[in-house]
C-alpha cells in the first residue's frame, strides 16, 4: 500500500515531477517533520518506487517510474479513462459554437 498514504503519495509525485531531490528539500515544503519524510522515503525505496543515491552528506531521491509499470493494469485503466474523457469531449462539443 505504498501509495495509499496521501503524504507519501504527494512526496512520490513531487519526486516524479521534479527529478532528484534531497530529504531536506522534500521536508521544506511537505508540512511534516524530517524524520516523518525519511520514514515515507524508506517505504517508497523498499517498494522500488524511488532510488536513493548518497552524495556527500545528503541522500538524493529519484523516482523509478519503470518500477510502476508491472503494478498497473494499464489497459484496464486507460479503457475507463478514455471512455470518461470522451464523454467529457461530447459534452464540450455540445457547448461549442459551430
Amino acid at each position, binding site marked *: *500500500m*505504498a*501509495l*495509499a*498514504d496521501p503524504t507519501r*503519495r504527494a512526496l512520490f*509525485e513531487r519526486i*516524479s*515531477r521534479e527529478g532528484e531531490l534531497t530529504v531536506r528539500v522534500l521536508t521544506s515544503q511537505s508540512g511534516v517533520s524530517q524524520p516523518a519524510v525519511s520514514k515515507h522515503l524508506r517505504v517508497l525505496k523498499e*517498494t522500488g518506487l524511488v532510488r536513493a543515491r548518497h552524495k556527500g552528506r545528503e541522500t538524493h531521491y529519484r523516482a523509478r*517510474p*519503470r*518500477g*510502476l*509499470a*508491472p*503494478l*498497473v*493494469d*494499464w*489497459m484496464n*485503466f*486507460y*479503457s475507463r479513462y*478514455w*471512455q*470518461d*474523457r*470522451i464523454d*467529457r*469531449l*461530447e*459534452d*464540450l*462539443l455540445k457547448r*461549442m459554437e*459551430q
Partner: protein
Amino acid sequence: MSAETTRSVVIEREMPHPPEKVWRALTQSFLLEEWLMKNDFQPVVGHRFNFRADWGAVDGEVLAVEPNKMLSYGWAAFGLESVVTWTLTPTSTGTHLRMEQSGFRADQEQAFKGAKYGWQGYFGGLEKVLARIE
C-alpha cells in the same frame, strides 16, 4: 505471440458534429484542458508537450497531423510508452471518431496480476475525482 507483441485500447464513438469542430476540440490547448488535461499542446509534428493532472504528468510528442482527419502523439507516463491516434471520418450525421492507444505489452499485464493492491488507493482517488466531475 512474441515478447514484442503489443496491444491497443480502442474507443469508437459517433459524434453529431462535423469533423472540423471535433478537430478543434482535439487540438486547441484551451479546449483540450476542458475535457482532457492541462497542457501546452500544439498540433505541430515534433512538438513536445505535457499533459498535467492530479494523478501525474504525461510526456508527449506530436507524431502526425492531418487536419480534420488524423492526429497521433506519443503518450509516456509512469513507465508506459504508448501512442495515441485519433481518426476522424465524416459521416452523414457528423463524425465517426476513433481513438487508439497502442503499445501495451502483454508482459506488463501479466506481471500486474499479483500486485494490483498497491495501486487501489491511488486510482481510487482518481475515481473520486472523476465521479465529482460527473
